[in-house]
């Protein structure tokens, strides 16, 4: 039996940021993660931050590496076959730039800072259960290396993603969910090539494509794909050829191709669970809601969830 103020289930960006923000407020927490830390840090996800997210991360002391490696820009372009593309200009219309910086780097920084500050993070936690969430002394039970552990806490933060146990611990009579699945996925690659200058969304009769970036020598590209497609069907050459076909010629000519260092297929889904709070359990990030990556909103919601409770 171990006592803490907040038990955080999930060591992704939502859980780790919450743990850090609580620490800044003098509140103690323990993070319980099912996977290894190495596995969590291997995930490649979001890459576009809202200005509110950038400001929050800076105020929380996470700005140094972000400002060194990230890149502020005026918004994203939408291209449509041979029509003239336009810029969704967030600086002109809202006075707020968008910011390219990878979720993987944010998570790495959060682990570094939590470890530096003596934060307690339990990885490879198995069989995680939430107990007594409607009462005053909720508990999180789990096994680590064959030994049973129980955390007694004041609050539980469910930051364990869409497939996590936290949301499923809310009684079925209370939980309402709203969902839309899409009949396609995104095939994405990461390549150590200079990105095209801008973030560009392209609609084409062959399907959607997106040009994005992580840093000056790291490009991220996506194409809409059939949900049933296999990565093995997409050698790099085929990917680059298909990608270029979907952008207007002037943009396609700027795409620098090279070997992929990562290639993955992600399904697209919209999902919201209500309420986000039940008893002493609060949900944050993908545990509470999923958005398709098109609006670059998933990580930005996970960050604002961290201040909402």
């Amino acid at each position, binding site marked *: 039996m171990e006592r803490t103020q907040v038990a955080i289930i999930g060591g992704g960006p939502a859980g780790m940021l919450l743990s850090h923000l609580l620490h800044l407020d003098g509140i103690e927490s323990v993070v319980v993660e099912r996977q290894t830390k190495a596995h969590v840090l291997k995930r490649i996800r979001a890459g576009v931050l809202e200005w509110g997210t950038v400001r929050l991360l800076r105020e929380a002391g996470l700005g140094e590496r972000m400002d060194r490696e990230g890149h502020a820009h005026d918004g994203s372009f939408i291209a449509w076959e041979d*029509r003239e593309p336009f810029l969704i200009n967030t600086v002109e*219309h809202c006075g707020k730039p968008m910011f390219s910086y990878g979720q993987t780097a944010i998570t790495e920084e959060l682990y570094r800072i939590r470890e530096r500050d003596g934060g307690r993070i339990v990885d490879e936690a198995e069989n995680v259960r939430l107990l007594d969430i409607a009462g005053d002394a909720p508990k999180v039970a789990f096994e680590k290396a064959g030994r049973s552990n129980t955390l007694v806490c004041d609050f539980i933060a469910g930051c364990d993603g869409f497939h996590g146990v936290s949301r499923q611990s809310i009684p079925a009579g209370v939980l309402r969910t709203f969902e839309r699945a*899409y009949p396609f996925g995104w095939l994405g690659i990461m390549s150590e090539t200079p990105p095209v200058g801008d973030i560009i*969304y392209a609609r084409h009769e062959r399907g959607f494509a997106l040009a994005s970036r992580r840093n000056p020598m790291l490009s991220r590209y996506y194409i809409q794909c059939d949900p049933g497609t296999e990565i093995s069907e997409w050698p790099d050459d085929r990917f680059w050829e298909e990608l270029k076909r979907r952008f207007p010629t002037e943009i396609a000519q700027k795409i620098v191709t090279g070997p992929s260092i990562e290639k993955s297929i992600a399904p697209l889904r919209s999902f919201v669970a209500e309420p986000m709070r039940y008893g002493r359990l609060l949900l944050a990030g993908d545990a509470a809601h999923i958005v398709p990556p098109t609006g670059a909103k998933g990580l930005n919601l996970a960050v604002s969830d961290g201040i909402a409770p």
Partner: protein
Amino acid sequence: MALRRVWGAVRLSWQLTKLLHVFPDEDHFETRIKLSEFDYLQASPHAQAALAEQYAGLPFES
């Protein structure tokens, strides 16, 4: 109140996803409607401002 920002982002993501992807059951009518939406966005500063406001992110709420 966090749910208001959540639903705002869910709606924007859904709207952009619908606009920019080719759906398997998309007919010519729908394709033209989407093209018209692009043309409107491309030509209208007001439409661009509304999109930019949502893309930049709705306020953080506590």
